[in-house]
């Protein structure tokens, strides 16, 4: 019954007691009342189902008494079991005519249940023996000492199409471009002041309706300076200012059509455009 390796005494009560002090009772390896009862029942050498609970109770009480006599402090489990067994024994011995009170099951049934429970524990103890007597790995049987590891050969096939290759290339070139993006020079614009001056300069010649793109300055042939769009936009803006000043009229027949400009003569009535 002695165990070379028993780190856990399964007693909640024991765990709270200083080691080496009172409860050193391994009680011959009994871990709890059920274990004691089972051991006692075995000494009766009868089928657990035919167990005499009264005899068992007597023996258990004697066991507990003996343990206490030897000045062992017993765990609560043992004492509760002792009183319960004493009670059960008394009920079993009392005449049966008396009706059981309340919901309490008949004493015989309680006794049978206890016997069955012991049988169950006994079965598990037998099972432990049966299992541990089997050939155990690395004690009785041994597997290959030097197994050959399986060589994993990665698949030779690659999942990549020409399209993947092309798009991988384009993506990178685009990224490269974005990386090298340089906000660069400010875009040169045809200033509003310059546009107004320019318009005042050409105004005398605008006696007839003239399209805006012919009024605006031509872009420098070298390609330097403001873009043509800038010339157009600024000239239009300046023309609207001149209209406000009453110096000229602006007309557009349809959306997206040409914009026409014309000088307004002195004293000439404002010409309403449709």
């Amino acid at each position, binding site marked *: 019954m002695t165990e070379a390796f028993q780190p856990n005494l399964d007693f909640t009560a024991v765990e709270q007691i200083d080691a080496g002090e009172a409860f050193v009772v391994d009680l011959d390896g009994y871990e709890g009342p*059920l274990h004691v009862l089972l051991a006692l029942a075995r000494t009766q050498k009868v089928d657990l189902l035919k167990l005499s609970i009264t005899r068992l109770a007597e023996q258990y009480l004697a066991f507990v008494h003996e343990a206490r006599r030897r000045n062992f402090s017993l765990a609560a489990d043992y004492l*509760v079991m002792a009183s319960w067994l004493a009670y059960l024994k008394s009920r079993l011995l009392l005449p049966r005519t008396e009706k059981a009170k309340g919901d309490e099951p008949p004493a015989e049934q309680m006794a049978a249940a206890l016997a069955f429970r012991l049988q169950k524990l006994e079965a598990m*103890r037998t099972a432990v023996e049966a299992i541990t007597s089997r050939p*155990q790995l690395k004690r009785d049987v*041994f597997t290959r000492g030097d197994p050959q590891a399986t060589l994993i050969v990665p698949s030779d096939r690659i999942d990549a199409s020409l399209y993947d290759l092309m798009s991988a290339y384009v993506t990178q070139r685009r990224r490269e471009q974005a990386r090298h993006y340089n906000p660069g020079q400010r875009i040169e614009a045809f200033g509003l002041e310059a546009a107004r001056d320019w318009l005042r300069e050409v105004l005398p010649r605008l006696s007839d309706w003239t399209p805006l793109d012919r009024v605006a300055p031509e872009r420098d042939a070298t390609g330097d300076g403001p873009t043509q769009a800038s010339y157009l936009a600024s000239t239009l803006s300046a023309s609207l200012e001149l209209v406000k000043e009453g110096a000229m009229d602006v007309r557009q027949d349809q959306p997206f059509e040409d914009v026409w400009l014309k000088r307004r003569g002195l004293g000439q009535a404002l010409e309403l455009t449709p």
Partner: protein
Amino acid sequence: MTLDFKPDEIEMARRVEALLFAATGPLSLVEIARRLPEGADVAAAITDLQTQYAGRGVELECVADRWRFRTAPDLGFLMTEEREEPRRLSKAALETLAIIAYHQPVTRAEIESVRGVSISRGTLDLLLEMGFVRLRGRRRTPGRPVTYATADRFLEHFGLASIHDLPGAAEMKAAGLLDLSLPTGFEVPDPSRGMDADDEDPIEDGDTPEFAQDFVGD
């Protein structure tokens, strides 16, 4: 890579033999079949090999539904150098292991009800750590207690083909000894824990993260 001709039975047995010999652990029929030409009768090859190796120094054995070669049990005494000093399990741990093995899936309260004493936390921890026992699920009862079951390593260690091969399990079952629902009036007062009136419901859900949590918080 595979050969064109359909290997005959002897060739098939050779291949299965080689695979099992080379493997680092037990192989299932499916794992073996995956390395063999389609339609290979692995089961027949295994039976064939098992017969050929019967009584020899090395034998073919089924553990946890997988196959492995191992030395004959009666020759264990020769392996003085290979033997590992087994970690000795306490009586409490062994009983707990047996209860888990025979009653799985089983809750801690149920284990305690069979043993009549509470299990110290270390006992279950040790069994889990050794890989003999695993957390299996949660009982669908109030408190959703974690249930325990044996792991493959348990079967491999004790050379069991499956949990159905546990010694004496059939007899115990026939005698009703593996039934966890207790007859009325069965309750013996037990101060170590409250009366457990768990309804049995074998359905588990596999919420693994919670196990871990529960385990830590235990």
